[in-house]
């Protein structure tokens, strides 16, 4: 990509840095618009930056790190699908509007989830892009019922939709489905890597500061080894993320990455709460926000059970059993 991972990271941190953890939903959506991130994957001929998966991942790592609320993952994937559907006439107006922040929901065919359920920020979405391997369609959102969610940084809702406009079917739909799915899975993996990095850093800082039995907790070897284990898992998941972002990606590969990264985030966030001790159990400390985001990341767009099975089946299918 023309803009490096590091440049995106630095610009994201600069942009988000002053807002603190889990910033205001409206203000941070505006900030994403202002920073031009919804144009990240839009081709240059359509007025965008024409960046690819690596840029996408770099941005979502930072959004995860700061626990930024909202539906940026869905918005960016929806925009990318529209950009890849040249025969859809309405996109000429839709893309610039979406880049400017008008919300498009994304409904990805995923296990255990109705097409109109679990839409992030459902009550603010004007249109819903329905994505399945057989068919891509756009529908107006007529109303939404928000459901309380454990993750306090993402608001889920069920929507009622109007008449659907089909954008693609057959092979074209399959291609767009693969695009949307790999992008969403990659973005969720990136979110998990960023979230885990922040949760771990917060925990290490806490252990260095907090004293018990006349010494900082960071001096207890058993705790040191546990944060070292978190670090190993985090760095390995991050390496896999960048390696996957740099090369063409199948749905199964993206799923395996998402399973690995979100499981790692869960593990790190679980350790973060335990290692924070009592303070980690109070809603006044941000520790639990990571835990809850980790669990929602793990459940969104197919969980580890689903994607690990897909990865296993896909690896088994490649091998002829020995005679």
């Amino acid at each position, binding site marked *: 990509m023309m803009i490096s991972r590091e440049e995106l990271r630095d610009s994201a941190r600069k942009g988000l840095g002053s807002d603190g953890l889990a910033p205001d939903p409206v203000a941070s959506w505006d900030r994403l618009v202002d920073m031009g991130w919804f144009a990240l994957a839009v081709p240059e001929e359509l007025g965008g930056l024409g960046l690819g998966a690596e840029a996408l991942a770099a941005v979502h790592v930072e959004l995860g790190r700061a626990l930024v609320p909202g539906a940026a993952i869905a918005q960016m994937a929806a925009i990318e699908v529209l950009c890849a559907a040249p025969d859809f006439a309405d996109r000429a107006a839709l893309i610039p509007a979406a880049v400017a922040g008008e919300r498009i929901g994304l409904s990805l065919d995923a296990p255990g989830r109705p097409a109109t359920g679990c839409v992030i920020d459902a009550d603010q979405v004007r249109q819903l892009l329905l994505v399945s391997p057989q068919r891509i369609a756009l529908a107006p959102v007529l109303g939404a019922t928000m459901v309380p*969610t454990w993750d306090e940084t993402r608001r889920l809702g069920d929507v009622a939709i109007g008449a659907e406009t089909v954008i693609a079917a057959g092979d074209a739909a399959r291609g767009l489905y693969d695009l949307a799915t790999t992008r969403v899975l990659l973005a969720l993996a990136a979110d998990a890597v960023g979230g885990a990095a922040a949760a771990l850093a917060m925990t290490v800082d806490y252990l260095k500061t907090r004293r018990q039995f006349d010494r*900082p907790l960071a001096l207890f070897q058993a705790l040191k080894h546990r944060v070292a284990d978190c670090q190993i898992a985090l760095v390995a998941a991050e390496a896999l993320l960048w390696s996957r972002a740099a090369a063409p990606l199948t749905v199964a590969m993206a799923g395996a990455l998402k399973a690995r990264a979100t499981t790692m985030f869960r593990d790190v966030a679980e350790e973060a709460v335990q290692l924070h001790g009592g303070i*980690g*159990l*109070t809603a*006044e400390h941000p520790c*639990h926000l990571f835990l*809850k985001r980790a669990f929602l990341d793990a459940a969104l767009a197919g969980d580890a059970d689903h994607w690990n099975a897909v990865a296993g089946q896909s690896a088994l299918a490649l091998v002829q059993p020995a005679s």
Partner: protein
Amino acid sequence: MAHPTDVSTTALAGLRADLRAWLAVNRPADWRACATHAEFAASQRDWFRKLVEAGYAIPHWPAEWPGGGRSLAEQKVIYEELARADAPRLLLSFVSTYHAFATLHECGNAEQKARYLPGILRGETWCQGFSEPGAGSDLAAVRTRAERRGDVYAVNGQKVWSTMAQYADRCLLLARTASEGAKQAGLTYFLLDMTAPGVTVRPIHQIQGDEEFAEIFLDNVEIPVTERIGAEGDGWAVAQATLSSERGLTLMELGYRMRGALDRLAALIGETGRTGDAGVQRDFGALTGQVDAVCALADQFLDRRMTGQEQVGDASVVKNAYSRALRAYAALGVRLGGIAAQRREPITYGDLNSGNWMADFMNSYAWTIAGGSEEIQRNIIAERMLGMPREPKGWTAP
């Protein structure tokens, strides 16, 4: 405390039958429906009153108290049946009937006993003021100051992680009266009236939405000298009496409750269409084995107590085994529940295995962190059961 008399099997069976019949009529069916923690506290008061009237609330008290004088074997039967009937756990009265009772009974003077023990049966509730923001698992590091001023002590400081302190009438308070010498030697034990001027209680908002714990702020609170238990500097020893007042019954009861609640997981497996998933079958089967092992362990622990064979560290093993199984139970529920489990449902107060999987999962941390974290328990097991050396006291940061 209770006299471990040799109760015949017939007598135990009789107790069991009586209690079972009583529970069939009197068990509150709607205790899981409380919409607020305050409502739950009220339902706890009702339930405690019923148990006192029926003679099942204080089986471990001496025989001169109505419903007291039960052997450990009888107490076990009572808790087994409460778990079996899925009756509410006794949360609000727990500190009163175990911790406050044991402290007063073993270390209180005649006046103090006469003043407070009958009140407990009338429903006066106590909380425990031990933990502090800076102390955590290191009790000797208590910093709340009590300064003698004539006939009173003036107390200043802050307590935290006090179970249901916002509903408590009185508090078992550990405070520092001297800062020289060994840290333990400077502690003194008080009985605090929670309505005294200068006492402020703030419930702690827990991550799953409960308010089971509270902070207590003490701002120049005056405690009469007559409300001191033991002498100045005896606080550490008195606190040991408080802490050792309940050992094993709770974990046995909770183990049985978890075993009963495996049905919720089984139902979830059915609802999500995974009955035929070989991996889920194995994981669920392994969990049932883990829960069965916790129950066996808790039973064995109680049996050993009854026969005087309890050893140092035994309690830590049971607690750790329980807390892990509890976490594993909730984690399997969260996993199987998928995206549906991420919808926030109203929590159930007082239940650790509610089937509200995310809430159960977060609630399980109360067992891995509070009352001596898993890390502290592991130290105890390694050092006191396995005889590995303790880290020298002088070890500090370079």
